[in-house]
């Protein structure tokens, strides 16, 4: 199937020479829910603004149904946006805000009024037509912003951190709501967030961005289970990233022990980063028969509700462990990891300097 959006080699350099996007390419299919995920200043909002037409890329193209839309101003693009702070018109009431698009196109008012009613019903605000924007809560305003965009029946809806201003409970509700709306309307969603949990919950595919580049693109499961760089592993969920050496294919050495793993193709004695998720580290008693596994001492214990979070020191490293069984502080333990839970990556090229600069920039 033809992709609805093809972003090719998009480059944005700001006036002061800051490279906001350094040649980004991304294919987005019909009815897909794609999330651009990354820390502040990674270029995700810039990419979204390029698609919406609010930012002019220096080079590269954005193909919409096969046609380059870069030269088109925003009002000529069949793409709508839900802005981060909603940007609702405070001098208009709810119905007038939602009717803004159809009204501009000079559509029949009775038909528009019916459509507005239908849209408000879909976002759970039936009967709110006459309300003033200022009288709405954050979540309600957010729903109005979605209705205002969707009434134009766009093929692509861009959402710029639309849930960032909501409290946790409301955010969870709206995540499900958005996912439902996306499924029901069949519209392609391009969603920007810095909240990895949000990205994993809602998306069909996630593009993890850093310093103006897409580091990894894949399904939430791929991104979580097989991060291709230390940055992705670190950004998506909690993880232990350890320096290691690939002894040979399917055998990796870290924490001064050798582990069987499923990765290969790195070459012998290659320097690598090893990622182990906290929940994949198993703590065994010292009398466990396992041989040749690292040992450690429990340094701290925290109850987190669903699980206990422990820090275990093993040699130079401190490892994060999630487990439903608590181990007392000071206890000596053996550490075990299943081969499939070891994720081996090439040494990361993400210099801390670049990351810091981008993060500062975003503030």
């Amino acid at each position: 199937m033809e992709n609805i959006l093809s972003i090719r080699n998009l480059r944005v350099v700001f006036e002061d020479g800051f490279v906001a996007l350094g040649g980004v390419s991304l294919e987005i299919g019909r009815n897909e829910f794609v999330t651009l995920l990354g820390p502040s200043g990674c270029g995700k909002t810039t990419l979204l603004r390029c698609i919406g037409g609010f930012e002019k890329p220096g080079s590269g193209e954005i193909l919409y149904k096969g046609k380059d839309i870069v030269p088109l101003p925003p009002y000529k693009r069949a793409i709508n946006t839900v802005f981060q702070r909603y940007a609702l018109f405070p001098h208009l009431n709810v119905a007038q805000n939602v009717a803004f698009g159809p009204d501009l196109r000079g559509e029949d008012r009775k038909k528009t009024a019916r459509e507005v009613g239908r849209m408000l019903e879909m976002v759970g605000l039936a009967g709110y037509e006459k309300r003033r924007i200022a009288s709405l809560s954050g979540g309600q305003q957010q729903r109005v912003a979605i209705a205002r965009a969707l009434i134009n029946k766009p093929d692509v809806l861009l959402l710029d951190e639309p849930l960032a201003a909501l409290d946790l409970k409301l955010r969870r509700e709206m995540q499900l709501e958005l996912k439902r709306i996306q499924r029901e309307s069949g519209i392609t969603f391009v969603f920007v967030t810095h909240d990895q949990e949000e990205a994993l919950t809602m998306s069909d595919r996630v593009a993890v961005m850093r310093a103006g580049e897409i580091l990894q693109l894949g399904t939430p499961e791929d991104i979580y289970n097989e991060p291709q760089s230390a940055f992705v592993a670190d950004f998506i969920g909690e993880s232990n990233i350890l320096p290691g050496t690939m002894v040979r294919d399917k055998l990796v050495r870290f924490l001064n022990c050798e582990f069987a793993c499923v990765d290969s193709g790195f070459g012998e004695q290659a320097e690598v980063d090893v990622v182990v998720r906290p929940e994949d580290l198993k703590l065994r008693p010292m009398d466990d028969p396992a041989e040749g596994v690292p040992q450690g001492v429990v340094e701290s214990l925290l109850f987190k509700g669903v699980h206990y979070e422990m820090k275990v020191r093993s040699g130079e490293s401190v490892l994060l462990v999630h487990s439903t069984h608590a181990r007392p502080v000071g206890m000596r333990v053996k550490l075990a990891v299943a081969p499939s839970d070891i994720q081996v990556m090439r040494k990361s090229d993400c210099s801390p300097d670049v990351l810091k600069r981008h993060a500062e920039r975003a503030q």
Partner: protein
Amino acid sequence: MKNKALTVPFVLWAAIFVVVPLLMILWYGVTVEETIPYTEIVLDDGSVIYELEDGSHTSEKPYEKRARVSLSNFKRMLEPTYLKLLLRSLKIAVITTLICLLLGYPVALILTGRDFKRPALWLMLLILPMWMNFLLRTYSWLSILENSGILNGLIASLREAIPALDEWLLARGVRRRIVFLYNENAVILGMVYNYLSFMIMPIYTVIEKTDRSLLEAAADLGANPVQRFLRVTLPYSLPGVLEGVTMVFVPAVTTFVISQLMGGGKVPLIGDIIQNQFGKSSDWHFGSTLSLLVMVVVLAFMGALNRIDKEEAAQKEVRIL
């Protein structure tokens, strides 16, 4: 409660410098001055005494004047002479305000444009002349526009250089020396020049403050630049426009210096007459009555403006549904 003490200086200030003068003008406005009436009585010994209204007698001729409550000044105020002056003042003020709006709004809009570099510098350049003395600024227009002024000099040398132009102009009855000054247009020019920045500033401030994301949202929903202006920028800048209109209109109705300099006394406005009453004619009572009239007109105007604003808001409400 404890903060009440902090308002005392303000209340005092307002009482002394606002309420008291207003009451005085009101008092002067509703009174006339007259000498105390008396009857002269010649006594048998040939000396003269004076009998006052209350029947008391005095040997000295009463010369004191006293104020008497009377609405006669209001009657005088309604004479056609003064009403015509008021109408002319209003007409010139309205024209001045409209020109300021037509010139000022686009300037404010351009200055707030995203592509416009260094708007602060340009605003500064607009305001800088206003720091110079008001009279000096107006006098400089005189030296440009007077019969032997800079502009006429330029035109004269142009006509000398191009005889064909001279003939063409003569054929159309344009004299060698064009009279620019001493008419309504000159007064309007003087007012527009002096008050334009009062129109630009409030409009600029309001447009500058307007959330740019609203413009982006409008564009996103399909509004072209003209629609964006009409549906977002314009409604949001209305408070600024109303403020600018007030700040230009009120001084324009009451000014007298500009009309005296640019109009050369040939275009008297209501302000000139009021000034006259406190100066040459020395009739503070009638001057106060006229001041009250102007005050009522200005208040009525501002009330109407407020109403327009509210009605517009109400109309917007029903525009779509």
